[in-house]
């Protein structure tokens, strides 16, 4: 049986921990009405395409999370005027303290975000801006899938080379044995 320590470098290359801090990057924080509102976006950096916008609502005074509000979002591109409406809910968030809405941003540039919060019959609004990078940055987020085939090909050629070397060594060993005999 061959020593098992070799398994370690093989496994180290193959596997990676799959985790991501929920919410994403903090875009801005505001206080409006009785709330402290923190807006997160992911992926980071924010780029056009499918994105996730999350909000943490806290009471302004004690900073306890607010979990019973109704939150809606209005995004408007400053350049083209394109608008997106979305409802942010806790069910759509991984972090259940947050309100999240998946949206698709059709273009890059600066976007205005208007947040409308309804709670106990009261309406509160907050506004902020976000800078969205072009879509090409998304390619980098899938680099692992593009790197996978070359790695497998390299491992395959290493395998073939090792096989041939082992065969050659065996042939040489047999020749030496024949010579001894």
């Amino acid at each position: 049986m061959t020593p098992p320590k070799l398994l370690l470098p093989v496994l180290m290359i193959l596997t990676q921990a799959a985790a991501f801090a929920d919410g994403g990057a903090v875009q801005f924080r505001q206080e409006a009405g009785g709330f402290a509102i923190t807006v997160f976006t992911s992926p980071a950096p924010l780029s056009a395409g499918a994105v996730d916008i999350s909000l943490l609502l806290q009471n302004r005074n004690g900073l306890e999370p607010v979990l019973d509000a109704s939150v809606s979002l209005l995004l408007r591109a400053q350049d083209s005027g394109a608008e997106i409406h979305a409802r942010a809910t806790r069910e759509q968030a991984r972090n259940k303290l947050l309100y999240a809405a998946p949206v698709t941003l059709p273009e890059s540039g600066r976007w205005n975000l208007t947040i409308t919060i309804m709670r106990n019959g009261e309406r509160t609004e907050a506004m902020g801006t976000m800078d969205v990078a072009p879509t090409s940055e998304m390619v980098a987020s899938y680099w692992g899938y593009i790197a996978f085939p070359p790695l497998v090909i390299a491992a395959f050629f290493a395998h073939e080379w090792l096989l041939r070397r082992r065969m050659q060594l065996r042939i040489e060993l047999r020749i030496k044995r024949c010579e001894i005999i």
Partner: protein
Amino acid sequence: MDPVAAAVFASWTLDLKLVCLLLAAAALYLRGWLRLRAEMPRKYPAGRLAAFAGGLCALLLALASPVDTFGGLLLQAHMIQHLLLLMVAPPLILLGQPVLPLLRGLPRRVFRDALGPFLSCLELRQLGRALVHPVVSWFAMAAAIVVWHLPRFYELGLHSQSWHRVEHACFFWSAVMFWWPVVGVWPSNPVWPRWAMIPYLGLADLVNTGLSAVLTFSDHVLYPSYQLSPRLWGISALDDQAAAGAIMWVPGSIAFLVPAVMLGMRAFESGRAQGVQPATIPRVGVPRIRARAPWDLLQTPILGTILRYRHFRRCVQAGMLLLAGVVTGDGLFGPQIAPMNLAGVLPWTHWRGLAVIVLLMAGNLFCMACPFTLPRDLARKFVAPRYRWPKRLRSKWIAAGLLAAYLWGYEALAPWDSPRLTAWIILGYFITAFVVDSLFKGASFCKYVCPIGQFHFVHALVSPLQVKVREPAVCGSCDTHDCIRGNDRQRGCELHLFQPRKLGNFDCTFCLDCVQACPQQNVGILRVLPGESLRDDRRGSGIGRLNRRPDVAALVLILVFGAFVNAAGMTEPVMMWMHRWHARLELRSMVPIVTVLYAGGLLIVPGISAGACGWLSVRWAQAGFAWKDLTCSFTLALIPVGFAMWLAHFSNHLFTGWSSWIPAIERFLRVHSGNYPPALSPSWLPCLEFLFLDLGLLLTLYTTWRVACRVVHGGRRALRVMSPWVVLTASLYAAGLWIVFQPMQMRGTMLMH
């Protein structure tokens, strides 16, 4: 429970890839542990299994529990996560003595053939020994802890998903290296005496203590991200940091000192320092690969019994016939709005997606359930066909032409947006199948005409299941050949596939007539290596030598290139290009533009590409090969990458528009719930599409390599001979990647209207 606490405990970030990886590791370990326990019960008690499982659970907690979710908001949570990755999961996993169980859990051929050369390579073994040498492993973990807690690198991990994963991988694997000599993973030999692990652990604790003290007693927040994060439960950023330092200090020190004390006590009890152990490890041989009966779907409980039922196929076909009738009726008489009509939704979104997924996971089950041949089977009970299919037409040229026409028609005539046209296509299919098979004997429509059948025949060559004989020796003594001739109670194979000489799934409709006819019950649905028959040069029954048939090569090229052209035609840039030319040329319809695109994409470009690649291969082979034979051989190898594109494309439509059947069904049944899930592309879908493309690329390259080795007997010449085809394959793969990144028209769904 307090709502906030409930929300916290409900905040799990379950990642499908992580869960699959952990389940696969657990399954492998369990399989190997069961085998080893039978051989060495004292070495592998239940405690090993529990330790390994505990380690995996600790990993899951670290990476998927609320600890991970809140790691970006609270440094304390992030520190707990790091402790799990550094001091809980790795030692537990190693206490399970995982190496041998994981190796023994692998399929024997993977262990021996795939991993064998690496495991027996001297240099790699030396590298492995070096990695777990106590000096190297100690410095690895110390460096990982210190470097990743420097503010610059810690912030990098917080701002970038990829670097965050790298950080976690560094923690986990450096910890595996660190704990390896402490646990004494078997069957490796310890390098240092056991008592040396006491200062080893003590020094590691010093590093941990130093770092913890910095965090605990610092008077300013070291990581700016936590300064900017919203404060939860009134905890200030500095208090959070101090608490994180305390968590790192106390439990961290316990994790180092407890094993050190235990080792000290053992050394004291033994009465002397233990030296390096001589090699008392019993030899564990590499398990021999014994010939076993291949896995047979027909022998599985319940499902096998159902499949072997004589009238199973008829029942399934009847069900599909009924469904086809309903869809056709709705298409003819229902509203002509595709998303609201069964004919606009089911065939173009669901059926196509499910058909390719079933091809990938099983085989040509669509042809098994095909409703188009059921009417002709019923008619044949009254009127037998009189003619044999003309010899000159016994090729795939007609089917290839019809397939090209079908792909062109899909884009030019847009049947996906016209339920009535879809219904007429279905009706036309029934009529054609009925007429052809009423006139001609055998399954002439399936074998020589049906474009959908050819799609399935070609792609079933990479399916994991195949109808084939179980024991070839049994067929050697058979002289009735019931599988192809039939007998009194069952007809034989209508596609003239003689089971003992059948090769692959080409032309096989999975009708199971051969299974029912064989008096020895020697035919089953067996597991095979995907793409195995693509590398086989032998003559197959009923199909000849596939790699010498230009009609099959033409069919394959249309399907492979058609996958990319069909998908690209629905992307925004290509559609805009077509509209620009439409406007520039002031044409009345898009048909001429579509015709040019498809003529180029299905005929001209594939023909020139394959021809040029074949010519270069012949030139570099320098062995007098026929251009036609070489081109046909290598063309077959393109099937996996083409299939991958079909899979990526159709699964995109299926999983994005999976709920599109709801409004159509509700309209058909005259009910209204109004509860329609949004047609959003799942976040994991691009990953699945990339995975399909990656696997298709790799299988095509491997097949191309094997074909080249067969032609020129391996080595550098094989690389030269295959290089033009590698370039062609890589180009197709790159095109597939580009297509996946483009916005795609969601035909037949509400998103279109």
